[in-house]
Structures are given as C-alpha cells and as structure tokens.
C-alpha cells in the first residue's frame, strides 16, 4: 500500500470546542485503497476527527489535505472535497420525505448534474450492491434500522466517492442488524474502496483494516496493523481499552 497515492493527510491538527481541547496534534495519513479503523473510548475525539476530514467540523490549527485539496474556509474547496468523500452516519440521516431511490439520486442529479435516468440506473446498481433493490420505492420510515443504514451507504456510493467515511455506522443498530451492515462494508473494502471507519466492531477491524488507530483524550495513542494492535499493544491505555471491550 505504501506506493499508492496519498488520499488523506492530517498534519499537526488541533481543534477546540470553546476551551475544550478535542484534538491534540493529530497526524495521520491514508493512502488510496487503505482501510483505517479508528477506535477509542467515547469522548476521545474520534468522531470529531473523522468529521474534520469532510469539514463538517473545522479544525483550528494544522493542515488537512484530502485528495490533493487543502481544507480551508474556502467553500468551493470544501464542496469539491465533499463530492469525493462519502459519509455514513451513526443515525443514518436519510431524508425522510423522499423515497429510497430519491435519497440516492438526489445528490448525483443536483450536485453532479447527472440526467435523472442515468442517476436512477446508478442508484439501482448500488441498491443492488447493498442488497435492497426491492425497497427502492419505499420511504425510509418504512425500513428497519439495518436497511436504512444500507440505504445510507448506497446513497453515499451514488456520488462515486474516492473515500468513504463511516462514523460509528452500527452503534445505533439492534444487534441482529449489525451483521448485514458490516457485510456490506466488508464487501466494499474487498472492492478496494479507501475507507476510514470509526467503530467499536473489533471483528470488523481485524478482518478488513490495514491499520487500527487508537485514540484517547484527543490524541492518537497507538497506530498499528490489526494483528499487532490486538496481540501486542504497546500503550497501557490501549491495553486497558482492549481489556474492556474484547
């Protein structure tokens, strides 16, 4: 992987919410095709970090480059980055007033200016990929949590992004639905998508991650390949965390 181009580079990034120092000197690079899992206790800043990558949160110090574009206050650049970066949220955030198909075609039509027929064809392709093409005409409120999250993944994929961000995609799901979402994510990883996932699913991390990043109190405490991360963690905080969740 070390020879593929850099997709995300985060250098010395700091962020504060008022007086609270959420991100402290974060350094992280992600290369094309890499799959990074960010783990850590709640409040460690992992969600904030992933939201900085598509500028849903602004960082105050340091530099974030995504696909060769530096994130600044320039709205044009931000929109350019967001077009190439798909995001899946903990709470799905589907648009409840639109059908599943409309949820998927909206951004391609309005942001990519794709003709409607083409957008629908594309949407159906991705809905098939997340295994719910038969729900295309339904509204999100009529679907289960797992189905909604798969639609959310399809919606993000319809923009044909270069990078996919997952912010705790399975945390709001009932246990029996977690697997159907993880299966879709694993397939996506196998197809070579560049992925950054904040998740507590350590089985998923073991299976697909190239690197696991452990965060605590706004810092990256440890960064290692999963086999090393899970078997021989170096840091005490990592050990304590792993002891709790495994």
């Amino acid at each position, binding site marked *: 992987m070390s020879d593929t181009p850099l997709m995300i580079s985060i250098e010395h990034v700091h962020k504060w919410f008022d007086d609270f120092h959420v991100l402290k000197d974060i350094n992280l690079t992600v290369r094309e095709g890499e799959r990074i899992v960010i783990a850590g206790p709640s409040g460690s800043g992992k969600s904030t970090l992933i939201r900085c990558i598509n500028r849903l949160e602004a960082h105050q110090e340091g530099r974030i480059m995504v696909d060769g574009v530096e994130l600044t206050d320039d709205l044009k650049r931000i929109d350019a980055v967001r077009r190439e*970066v798909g995001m899946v949220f903990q709470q799905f955030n589907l648009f409840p007033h639109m059908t599943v198909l409309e949820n998927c075609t909206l951004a391609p039509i309005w942001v990519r200016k794709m003709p409607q027929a083409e957008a629908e064809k594309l949407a159906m392709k991705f809905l098939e990929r997340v295994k719910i093409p038969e729900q295309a005409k339904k*509204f999100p409120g009529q679907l289960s949590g797992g189905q909604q999250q798969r639609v959310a993944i399809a919606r993000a994929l319809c*923009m044909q992004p270069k990078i996919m961000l997952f912010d705790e995609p399975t945390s709001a799901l009932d246990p029996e639905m977690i697997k159907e979402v993880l299966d879709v994510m694993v397939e996506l990883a196998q197809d070579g998508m560049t992925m950054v996932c904040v998740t507590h699913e350590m089985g998923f991390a073991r299976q697909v991650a190239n690197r696991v990043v452990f965060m605590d109190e706004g810092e990256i405490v440890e960064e290692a390949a999963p086999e090393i991360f899970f078997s021989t963690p170096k840091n005490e905080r990592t050990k304590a965390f792993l002891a709790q969740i495994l």
Partner: protein
Amino acid sequence: MQSVKWLRKNLFSDVWNSALTLFALWVIYISVPPLLDWAIFKAVWEGNGNTCREITSGACWPFVKANLGQFIYGRYPESELWRVNLTFVLGVAGLIPMLMPSAPAKKWNLIYLVVAYPLIAIVLLAGDRPGLVGVDTSLWGGLLVTLVVAVTGIVVSLPLGILLALGRRSDMPAIRMLSIAFIEFWRGVPLVTVLFMASVMLPLFLPEGVSFDNLLRCLIGVALFSSAYMAEVVRGGLQAIPRGQYEAARAVGMSYWQTMGLIILPQALRHVIPGIVNTFIGLFKDTTLVLIVGIFDLLGQVRAQLSDPNWAVPEGATTGYVFAALVFWVFCFGMSRYSVFMERRLNTDHRN
C-alpha cells in the same frame, strides 16, 4: 334498538354523563330555536327598508340583497364590474388545480399564480391601459378589497417569511442582525399603527408632488407585517429539523440553497402547516383594519351602507354584521379544512 343502545352507551352511561347530556340539550334548546327564528322563520326576506321597519322580529335580508353589489365591489363602476369578475375567475382557475395534489404541471401553475396572475390582476383591476378605463383604488371596496389585501399578504408573506427565517438562522452576522431587527420591529408594532404610518405619516416624508396609492401603501404594510409573523412560524419548523439532515446534505456536496430548498424546507414547512394556515387566517381577518385609514373592505362597506337612511332599520346592523361574519367564516373555515386535508395527505405519504 341499535340507537337506544348507542344512546345508553354514549350519552347516558352514568349519572354524570346523563347530567352533561341533559345540560347540553338545554343549551341547544335555549340557543338554537331563537337563532333560527331570527335568521330564517321570523326574518324579512322580501321587501325594502319600510318592510324591515314594520317587521322587526328577525333579520332584514333585503338589506343584504339590495346592497350585495356594494358589499362585493364597493364603488367600482358598474360598467366595469366584468373586470373584477374576470380577475376572480382567473384567480380561481389558477388556484383550484394548484390546491389539488393530483393536478399536473404544478411548476407552470405556480408560475402562473405567482408571476403572471398578479400582473394580469393589476392591469384588469386598476386599468389605465389602452382599451381599459383606469379605476382609482379609492373606488374599490367590499369583498374585492378584502381579497386583494389578504391574497397579497399571503402571497408575499410566505416567501418573504421563509427568507427572513433563514436569515435569522444564518451564520452571517450582518444578515442575522438585519433579519432579527426586521422581524422584531414589525412584530413589535400593532397593525393599526402600521396602517396609520403607511397612510398618514408616510406622505409627510415624501417630497411634494410624490404620492403613491393609499391602498398600495396598506398592501405593503400588511405584507411586511405578516412576513414577520410568518418568519417566526417557519423558524419554528426549521428548529424541528435534526442537525443530521443538514450534515447529510452538506456531506454529499449540496450547496446551502440546495440543502435548504430540497431537504430542510420541504420538511420544516410540513411541520408548520397549522401555524402557516393560522397566520393566513389571522391575516385574512385583520384586513378589516384597513377601515381605519379610509379603505372600505367588506366589513367597512357593510357599515357604510348602514348609514344609508333608506336602510336605517332596527335589525339592519345585526343582519349586516351577521352577513359579514358569515362570509369571513366561509373563507377561514375553507382554509382550515384545506390545511387539515394537506396535513393528512402529507402524513400518510411518508410516515410509517
């Protein structure tokens, strides 16, 4: 037998319930028959002012009948009434398909109603074009004025109110401050004051010789006033939309206006349909206030006709006011029912 069972179950199930039923029946007994007597059975239906002076047991409907023209058109010249009627018909023709969810071509319908129709209406009603005699707005009156003021207020206040609500939640301090100042100013003054200012004070500030129409000034005042109220109703809806909706829209690269127009407003407005219609209804009834600046809306026209010595009859005022109330009620009730219909339809559409 079925009905006896029903009565037992629903109206006389226990002592308390029976007492309430009897009380309700008594209230109906003392209120409804006299009302019907007054309005129908003992009312005067045919005749003139003299008949109404002789028979004073009930409503004087000939008063309404004889003055219906004034109640609807004010002092609009008789030979030109077709213009008002045509304006009305064109408006209804545009409005009905707009209100029916199943009717096609909503986009063109909306453009007709919001862009083309107001221009047509201005030309038709005010005239002053080749082939049309100009009709000064001081001659307009009655239901015509009521509808002109209400419709203008409604058509202007919704889009302006939406913009103000968005402005008040904007990240840009200048826009936010301006929106807040505008909303709080217009909400802070009574409509009566606004109308007085528009009609009496404004001309004092304008240079000599520059004047513009009294009715137009009131229209602007009413529109801005109701926009401020509408803005707050819409803002309530905007606040009900979870932050995740904004984030999801922004995360796929949608611009601010796309996010608002396609994601946030369609949901927010749906939440506040009752509030929006409430504001419309309030506005519709507030149009009667234009009376104080010398514009005769429906109610004003009723009052004006009462001062006609021919109709100085005992039940004239009551009859006139009941008639005006009835007309207002029909319009307001219509709006209310339509809003209930829309709410139901939109809810069954998407919620599980």
